């Protein structure tokens, strides 16, 4: 069965410092991996995805993520955090394209708090 784990409920960083939000996954075959961000009373916004290719993927708002197949991880990173990055972040996985269902399996979310 597919699953996603976000081991930290909350991550606190100071503005200007680098940030990392952790994600590990379990899926058979080659995974499709995603990061979404959710602001209060708003839907999820797509940040970035890994399908194949370079293990370091770049996304919106200066975020990037590193795919590590041996550690089954897909950690979200940003070199310099902004107060406006404070939000709820979700990691998600879906089965490879050869399977009929393409729904996302989400982690429970990690709240990022950036202090000024």
């Amino acid at each position, binding site marked *: 069965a597919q699953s*996603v784990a976000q081991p930290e409920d909350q991550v606190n960083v100071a503005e200007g410092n680098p940030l990392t939000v952790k994600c590990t996954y379990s899926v058979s075959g080659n995974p499709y991996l*995603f990061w979404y961000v959710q602001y209060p*009373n708003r839907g999820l916004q*797509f940040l970035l*995805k890994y399908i194949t290719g370079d293990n370091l993927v770049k996304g919106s708002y200066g975020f990037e993520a590193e795919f590590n197949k041996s550690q089954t991880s897909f950690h979200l990173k940003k070199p310099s955090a902004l107060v406006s990055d404070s939000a709820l972040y979700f990691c998600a996985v879906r089965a490879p394209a050869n399977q009929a*269902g393409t729904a996302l399996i989400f982690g429970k979310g990690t709240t990022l708090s950036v202090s000024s």
Partner: protein
Amino acid sequence: EAGVAQSPRYKIIEKRQSVAFWCNPISGHATLYWYQQILGQGPKLLIQFQNNGVVDDSQLPKDRFSAERLKGVDSTLKIQPAKLEDSAVYLCASSYGPEQYFGPGTRLTVT
């Protein structure tokens, strides 16, 4: 490009009442999803449509939930009768490629 539209944004009902949510996906997106997001959890799939056909409804509580996507565009999700545990945000998403685009959601409170 217009995003995924959902209505209403908020709904409060009493248990055993019925409720319906509407979703209009991004133009040209053949795949449409309904997710349920309970407070403190990640979204969980209820049903997936490809055009107007159901691809996956294995997690839909079919004794009380129903959904349709007539003409392969708009979709409606209905709950009848509602239970207290149905209080959640109901998210609609659509996709053309691998990434899904989400609407703002409908926050349902069942009292």
